[in-house]
């Protein structure tokens, strides 16, 4: 199952890309402590203030367009940048490690209900 989010920011894709790949910039929004070797196959470690730590491997990287990380728990996050008239559309899809389809169905149903 997936969680999908999208925002449009006024900056150019190239600048947003820096925020996705430069560990220092990532520390401003993604995690409190970041190590990332931003190239295909490169490894990343993300730590948060609450003691949480996640490791990832860069599965895909297309400069200023697309970054895909595989989490060590089996999940994946794909971030895509697209130039739009008023800046850059940032599109995020995080996929979970596998849940049974029946759980997924009901989860979707319940979130749909909550949003209704």
């Amino acid at each position, binding site marked *: 199952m997936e969680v999908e989010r999208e*925002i449009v*920011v006024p900056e150019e894709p190239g*600048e*947003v890309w820096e925020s996705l790949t430069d560990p220092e910039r990532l520390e401003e929004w*993604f995690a409190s402590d970041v190590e990332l070797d931003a190239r295909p196959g490169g490894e990343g470690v993300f730590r948060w203030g609450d003691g949480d730590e996640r490791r990832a491997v860069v599965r895909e990287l297309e400069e200023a367009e697309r970054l895909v990380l595989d989490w060590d728990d089996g999940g994946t996050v794909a971030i895509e940048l697209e130039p739009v008239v008023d800046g850059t559309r940032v599109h995020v899809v995080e996929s979970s490690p596998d849940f049974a389809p029946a759980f997924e*169905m*009901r*989860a979707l*149903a319940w979130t749909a209900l909550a949003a*209704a």
Partner: protein
Amino acid sequence: MDSARSGVDQVFAALGDAGRRSLVEAVATRGTATATELAAGLPVTRQAVAKQLSTLADAGLLRAKRAGRETRYEVTPAPLEDAVEWMVSVGAAWDERLAALRRSLAKKT
């Protein structure tokens, strides 16, 4: 994947009607309910309610139990499932992160 997708479509189809959504809520409020009980408080026939309940059960939102001549329905206990928790917490995390990304970019420019 195709079967999962059609399952999801089925759920959204089942919920794509305000009447069905409120039926799920009515069942949840009562714990269990039959079509007769639910129809008593609504300007629709028992048959119409029964049909909707059956659709909701097919989509996995309600669970049907035979009770004599009637079928009792209860809400499946999905809110406690790991999948729901995952969806809610990951969604909230991205809302926060993307807001922080926006602030971080604005600060730099």
